[in-house]
């Protein structure tokens, strides 16, 4: 079973990203949206943590949130729009949003 984990909180004041990273399954994926895209901020420990995730963990971010914040995406990141977000939720066995 592969889970798509969805995060929307900023990782700088909140523990959801670090908790999530600890329990990712080997086939899981991470989708950043809302303030969670700040984890992509260059030069941050959070960005580094994302870069260090095993290659098999797919990393996605909602395009509107990345563009709104003027962030630079790492090579391993795939930007998604809403239709692609929907497709991902079908592709993965379940969606776990860290509310």
């Amino acid at each position: 079973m592969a889970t798509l984990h969805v995060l929307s909180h900023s990782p700088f004041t909140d523990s959801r990203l670090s908790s999530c990273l600890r329990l990712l399954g080997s086939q899981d994926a991470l989708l950043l949206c809302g303030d969670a895209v700040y984890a992509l901020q260059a030069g941050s420990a959070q960005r580094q943590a994302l870069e260090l995730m095993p290659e098999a963990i797919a990393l996605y971010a909602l395009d509107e949130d990345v563009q709104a914040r003027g962030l630079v995406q790492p090579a391993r990141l795939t930007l998604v729009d809403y239709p692609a977000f929907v497709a991902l939720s079908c592709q993965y066995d379940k969606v776990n949003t860290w509310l």
Partner: protein
Amino acid sequence: MSKSLLIISRQAPWSGPGAREALDIALAGGAFDLPIGLLFLDDGVFQLSGAQQPANLQQKDLGANLQALPMFGVEALYASQRSLEERGLQDQLSSLAVERLDDAGLSALIDRYDQVLTL
């Protein structure tokens, strides 16, 4: 066959209605005879503390609702070992029977369920 649902409860007991509302989802699922699991993670493990006296805050005792879980058929109760240790709670828990899991165990737990809801 019913789909199973794992509820991950991450809020401290009185940080707002979050802990109570996560529990309500679990109890409702149990009342409908659905396969429900409940995992206490991060500050959610504070709900398991044996030393609570909520009357001081004019709050309800969540512990009573937690004790009702097995009566509603929700016996798959889990807590993150790491979250307990971070908060020094390993030896201060109430009598509720929860299985403690390390990170790998948590990952495997999530895998076993058809759906997850993390509050």
